[in-house]
């Protein structure tokens, strides 16, 4: 059983469209991270959100941490083919050592 569930699992959209990816859990985390992984490579950190309700922006990407620190969302505005990849959320336990990864959302942005 996955501690963090992501939805949707797969998303195929046209360049220029907007999209939102969700990461949900019944557990509370000290912080939450989003990673992007491209084929043949390891995941790369995009952002860390720490405070309940926090919103962070990274160019066209907006990340939000739920008020209760159990869930998060990633919104991409005007998606581009370069955004294609596997997006993974990871909740960090309160001992700061254990990372719980979500099931992943595979995004394909068509030109």
């Amino acid at each position, binding site marked *: 059983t996955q501690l963090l569930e992501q939805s949707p699992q797969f998303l195929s959209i046209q360049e220029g469209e907007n999209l939102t990816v969700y990461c949900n859990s019944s557990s509370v985390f000290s912080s939450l991270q989003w990673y992007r992984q491209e084929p043949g490579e*390891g995941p790369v*950190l995009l952002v860390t959100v720490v405070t309940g309700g926090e919103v962070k922006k990274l160019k066209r990407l907006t990340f939000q941490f739920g008020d209760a620190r159990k869930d998060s969302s990633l919104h991409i505005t005007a998606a581009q083919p370069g955004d294609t990849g596997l997006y*993974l959320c990871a909740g960090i336990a309160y001992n*700061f050592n254990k990372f719980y*990864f*979500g099931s992943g959302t*595979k995004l394909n942005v068509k030109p």
Partner: protein
Amino acid sequence: GAGVSQSPSNKVTEKGKDVELRCDPISGHTALYWYRQRLGQGLEFLIYFQGNSAPDKSGLPSDRFSAERTGESVSTLTIQRTQQEDSAVYLCASSLLRQLGNEQYFGPGTRLTVT
């Protein structure tokens, strides 16, 4: 500086054979993690090393899996008597231990195929 490296990048083995996967973390990173990733899926935690503390082995799927780490350097993940369901990408990550915002730096992974 150099990132996390893993070897081999690809390994094809016959069912029943043992395999050893290697991870070289970033120098100075005290924490090291092993994950398993099945095709197109998320990361499954296997084991975590932190300095000289006892490793957290709670994610190892069976006693065929074991891992060692020499001090704060190289780690090896060993799978004995491999099975077809062991086929996956095995990822290693290292990080500094901070209270908040720990960033894991991942290697490129070892793709294991058991035939």
